[in-house]
């Protein structure tokens, strides 16, 4: 297991390096001069020139690439428009997305796994139809529209939740304050809707698959109680693909966060991506893409390792 982990970490570093090259080429081939955009309409040629010089846009490409990489590694790569280092900008926003993502995953798990289980156990019953229909709706409804509906109902009509924003925070976390917690509810429900739907369907499918296995029949034949058969024998084995899926949902969370955070004015990584692309802040876009890719890869690695723990038949060495 140890050598496998080391091998995967080395692979991760290599992939990240390749990604930096790819991202750099993409950024440099994107149409539009960032200096012109930053200077705005009506700017003088002199001011555009000063901005180009300041951004080092005349340096050879390898110098610009090295500046990006070394700046990212030692943490002092300056954002073009935020007047702060890129990592500072990202880290300032990370808690907002982290708590939203974690809350969404927890909510999704609490709802989707029992729902998927019930749906599988009571297959072709009204419970099953209700869960599968709800899951279909959850997958089909666009996140931003669902968020707007939640805001309309709970914020405008019922006046029981704030419409948008993050509210008060304590040590940078909103879930530590009542006001922040109230602000967290709508974006969490909106973001988790997709996760809930996916996980419920997956749990159901996985459980149905496992329940068809012969060892389940054996367990029942041994006289075990149905509850023990379902939870100890079926559910634990059905959990592996679900856990994998949760790990892979880091990407879904980031993608969903762009829409959810923009719609609910939640100041996280999703909003940062949106704002940075509009501002043409290449440094932040570069840093964010790398950061998200790293998160994605680490979560993949973590899932693979967790897999071995959940399913003792899996070994990597």
């Amino acid at each position, binding site marked *: 297991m140890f050598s496998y982990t080391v091998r995967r970490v080395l692979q991760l570093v290599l992939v990240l390096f390749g990604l930096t090259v790819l991202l750099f080429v993409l950024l440099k081939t*994107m*149409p*539009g*001069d*960032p200096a*012109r*955009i*930053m*200077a*705005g*309409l*009506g*700017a*003088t*040629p*002199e*001011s*555009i*020139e*000063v*901005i180009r010089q*300041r951004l080092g846009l005349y340096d050879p490409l390898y110098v610009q690439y090295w500046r990006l990489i070394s700046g990212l590694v030692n943490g002092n790569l300056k954002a073009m*428009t*935020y*007047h*702060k280092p890129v990592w500072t*900008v990202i880290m*300032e*926003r990370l808690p907002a997305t982290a708590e939203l993502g974690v809350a969404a995953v927890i909510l999704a798990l609490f709802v989707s796994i029992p729902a998927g289980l019930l749906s599988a156990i009571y297959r072709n019953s009204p419970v099953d139809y209700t869960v599968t229909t709800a899951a279909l709706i959850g997958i089909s409804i666009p996140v*931003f529209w669902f968020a*707007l509906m939640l*805001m*309309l109902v709970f*914020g*405008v009509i019922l*006046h029981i939740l*704030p*419409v*948008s*924003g*993050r509210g008060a925070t304590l040590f940078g976390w909103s879930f530590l304050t009542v006001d922040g917690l109230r602000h967290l509810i709508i974006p969490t429900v909106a973001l988790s809707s997709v996760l809930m739907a996916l996980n419920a369907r997956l749990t159901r499918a996985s459980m149905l698959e496992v329940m068809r296995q012969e060892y389940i029949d054996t367990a029942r034949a041994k006289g075990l109680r149905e509850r023990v058969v379902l939870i100890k024998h079926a559910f634990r084995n059905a959990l592996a693909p679900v856990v994998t899926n949760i790990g892979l949902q880091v990407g879904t969370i980031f993608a969903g966060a762009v829409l959810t955070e*923009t*719609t*609910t*004015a939640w*100041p996280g990584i999703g*909003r*940062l991506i*949106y*704002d940075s692309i*509009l*501002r*043409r802040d290449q440094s932040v876009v570069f840093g964010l893409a790398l950061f998200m890719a790293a998160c994605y890869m680490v979560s993949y690695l973590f899932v693979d390792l967790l897999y071995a723990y959940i399913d003792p038949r899996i070994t990597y060495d």
Partner: protein
Amino acid sequence: MRKLLLVLGMSLVVFGLVAVAQTSVPETPGAKVGGTVTVGVGQTFIDLDPRVSNSVYDFYIIDAVFDDLVGLDQETLAPIPFVAKSWETAPDGSETTFYLNEGIKFHNGEDLTAEDVAYTFNWIVDPANGSPNATEYEWMQEAVVIDDYTMKIINKPEWTPYCPGIVSESAAIVPMDTCEEMGPEQFNLAPVGSGAYKFVEWVVSDHITLERNEDYWLVYPNLDKVVFRPIPNLATMMLELEAGGVDIADNIPAQDVPRFQADPNVVVQQMPSLSYFHIGFNHSHLPSSDVRFRKAVGMSIDLDAAVFSIFQGITGIRAYGVTPAALWANDREYLQANATEEDDAEAVRLFDELKAEGIIPEKFETTIYCPLDPRRVQLSTILATNLQENGINAQVQPLDWGPLLDLLYRSEADPLGEDFEIYVMGWSGGPDPDNFIYYLYTTENATIGTANNFSWYSNPEVDRLVKEAATVPGCDQATREALYVEAQRIAFIEDYCDVTGYHYIETQGVRARVNDYTLNALGDIEFCSPQCNVWVDG
């Protein structure tokens, strides 16, 4: 993008002393002290340093944190005393001397003196600083300190006098020592001004909080706090306004205006803005350099219907010339009476004539370029549909600012802009016709890499009239108006240089609990200025 919001208009540049009134704020009966106002804005803030910011949203904050050298009368758009209690212009218009109010302090306790004012101006015009606002001061040579509370601004000889105006909002006064000590980046993050509200915190993308400046020199500001919240999604912003999460929301869409007008908790404020949007043509190559082509395009579209469908008769009106309807020298009646209106038969005849002459090549296809602004996309789409019906294969290509500016600014390799014939763009300016016609229709502004005259429209007579209007000795408004009117008639009637589109009407939703707040034509949000001191009920 914010451009050219010149606040000190031509009435300043006359001979002798102009403004002698003391800077003051009218008292509002029943005004209450205390409370917070929350403002929802469409984008995140970028630069809070007035010397380098060019975003209209940043200026919402800047207007509250900093004081301008002169104010702007919200009704007449004329300059009024603010930091400068009076000013006088030399008889030849070569310089203007400003006499400042004494006792103004920055939020850090430093005195605001003539040195700070001169520093602010000189910093912006210094090319080494790369201020994007330097273009507003092309006419200015330098600012000079006379004594602690007197300074003057000297014009370049070729811009003497300079009638359109000599001070911009981008020159909100900054403290020299603090700026030098903090450097531009730190100053951007924690600005120090002398305005009615002090900067408290900036949680990026979430909010900016300002609090009352207890020692404000002009008046005791009524509000405890002002909070600005960037809300990028317009639908969310409307819900927040309805729920009371924000007290002021800008850019109310036309379809939401009737709903809010019926809501007793919200007051919809509207003001014709100083803006102009148009269908432009590339004058550097055929067929768009041929006036018959431009007229045929203009005759293909029913602009009244197009503008109505975009704004539903609520948030925009049709333009007939470049000067907004809210501004003098707009010559609206004449230009409307002589406007080229929809005439499909004549358009088809002209297109056929141009095709027969080979000016429109066989299998001609054209693309209408515009920014990712829904209104301009809509206008472009209507035009493309109408052109298709009249035998011209046209499609719409909305572009992000980067590629769009690359295209329209042209390059040394492609000075004629071979890749475009038609575009839809816009412009926002200050309270002087020069801010529009000079930048968009003079040869001086048709340069590779930074052109504002994207068409490269060039008529020496228009150039002469516009320059003369900006430098009329004595700056007599009637004389200037006659010159701008003549220039516009040549550009829009004789040369048919482009198809005039629309002027936007600024529309904000304000919760009824907010008092003494008035929207102005520049679209500014002012809480405490020589003309208002906003307060809230409850």
